């Protein structure tokens, strides 16, 4: 038996990186399943693989998770746990006289990818402040751009700001004259919104629910260990990232980014529902009832089994 698990070489994926590195997942599964880790560069690719039946379990952003659920009409996957929260913000150039949301009129802003978590957040944020995007006849341009391009254009002054996840947000904040207009945590109850979630295929949940439960039990241990050994964890995640990408992430930015992330298994169901509703409201997704998006059962069993 094998368990194919997808994740990204990202700071927000500290949980799977550490768990796999420290062998905790393997230990939890024992002889019942061999873990086959698959590393992806971004959500759409991971979701393609999952929809194609090439993955059993995956860590990814709530955006792709919701998209995958809706596109498959609920047939493909369930969110079974959270993994990370926080770590996204709107950073603007200080020299543009932007002090509040209303000053964004007539500006060019960037988001990482159409329909991803931050893109939805940005557009909803604008809408809530009475601003429409250009394609809807409004005064704000939103450009989906990859991280490196965002940074370069920010430096050149061709964009006025960007709503990005860590570590890009941290890199932007470090630019001269940069101003953090919105820390996304401020927009959510208790400052918590999902950044990385765990999805399992329905097939896995139906055929081998025990594996999911044991996986989550190990994950709980990992997040608790991170909370208890923050510095050590950070160093080890860096090492893990270096193994995956052969390169280090810039140290200063990493520290800043790390400080804005929280790791835990909490599912944040209401936030997920809001994200799904927002994406549908923006027309990114066909309307489909997301009631069945979350399957709490494995996590609850895992929590019950875990020592407090």
């Amino acid at each position, binding site marked *: 038996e094998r368990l194919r698990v997808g994740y990204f070489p990202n700071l927000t994926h500290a949980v799977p990186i550490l768990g796999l590195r420290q062998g905790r997942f393997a230990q939890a599964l024992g002889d019942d399943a061999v873990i086959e880790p698959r590393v992806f560069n971004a959500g759409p690719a991971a979701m393609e693989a999952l929809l194609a039946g090439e993955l059993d379990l995956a860590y990814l952003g709530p955006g792709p998770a919701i998209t995958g659920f809706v*596109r498959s009409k609920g047939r493909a996957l369930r969110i079974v746990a959270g993994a990370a929260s926080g770590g996204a913000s709107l950073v603007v150039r200080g020299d543009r006289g932007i002090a509040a949301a209303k000053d964004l009129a007539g500006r060019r802003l960037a988001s990482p990818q159409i329909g991803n978590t931050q893109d939805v957040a940005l557009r909803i944020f604008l809408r809530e402040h009475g601003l429409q995007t250009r394609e809807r006849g409004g005064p704000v341009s939103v450009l989906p*751009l990859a991280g490196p*391009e965002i940074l370069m*254009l920010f430096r*050149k002054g061709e964009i006025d700001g960007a709503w990005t996840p860590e570590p890009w947000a941290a890199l932007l904040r470090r630019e001269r004259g940069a101003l953090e207009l919105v820390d996304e945590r401020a927009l959510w109850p208790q400052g918590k919104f999902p950044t990385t979630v765990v999805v399992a295929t329905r097939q896995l949940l139906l055929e081998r629910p025990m594996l999911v439960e044991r996986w989550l039990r190990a994950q709980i241990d990992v997040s608790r260990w991170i909370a208890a050994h923050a510095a050590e964890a950070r160093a080890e995640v860096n090492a893990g990232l270096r193994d995956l990408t052969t390169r280090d992430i810039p140290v200063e930015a990493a520290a800043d980014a790390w400080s804005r992330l929280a790791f835990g298994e909490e599912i944040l169901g209401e936030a997920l529902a809001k994200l799904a509703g927002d994406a549908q409201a923006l027309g990114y997704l066909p309307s489909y009832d997301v009631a069945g998006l979350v399957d709490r059962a494995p996590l609850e069993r895992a929590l019950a089994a875990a020592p407090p």
Partner: protein
Amino acid sequence: MPSPQDVLASFARGLSDGSFLIGTAVSLRRIAVGYGISVVLGLGLGLAIGRFRLLEDTVGSLVFGLQTIPSICWLPFAILWFGLSERAIVFVVVMGALLSIVIATDDGVKNTPPLLVRAGRTMGMRGVGLYARVVLPSALPAIVSGMKLGWSFAWRSLMAGELLFVSAGLGQLLTVGRDLNDMSLVIAVMLLIVAVGLAVERLLFGTAERVIRRRWGFVGVRG
């Protein structure tokens, strides 16, 4: 995989909400500019490289090397040099298509029958004149097929270049489809791309090749 019905529905939606039409129009305008520049520069460079050994060993090698760089690598440079403008996209298109035209032209030039060049020279032609009036027409079949390939690579690069920012274009539609995991949209756009590709091939190159084959008397192995 989406069902054919899904794809059809996506197609219908794209057509009715105008996004396919606008996307095609925008992309075609960009490619017209980018490809036009590629053809002019590519012919010039190709002819120059075919002519001067010094250029061949330097620029020629460089050209081939650059040719292997994927379009996506050019994005940062495009932004750096041209900012967020149409020109940046056009630059990506040019980098994608230019070099296959250069290579084909250079090849056509090198494979010019020596007898025709000699004939041109006894008519007092040399240098640029010889090039324009003898070598270029003689290399035409090779150049046309290089331009055909170049066109398809321009088109491919455009799709990459249009990832740069939202401004309609088929490449953007494609990315949206992929990012939103909307495979039926992706397939619908792919079909659109293929359709436009075929239309342009038929219009531009089909005719050119037929004329050339008739004049040259190439009939293939069927004749």
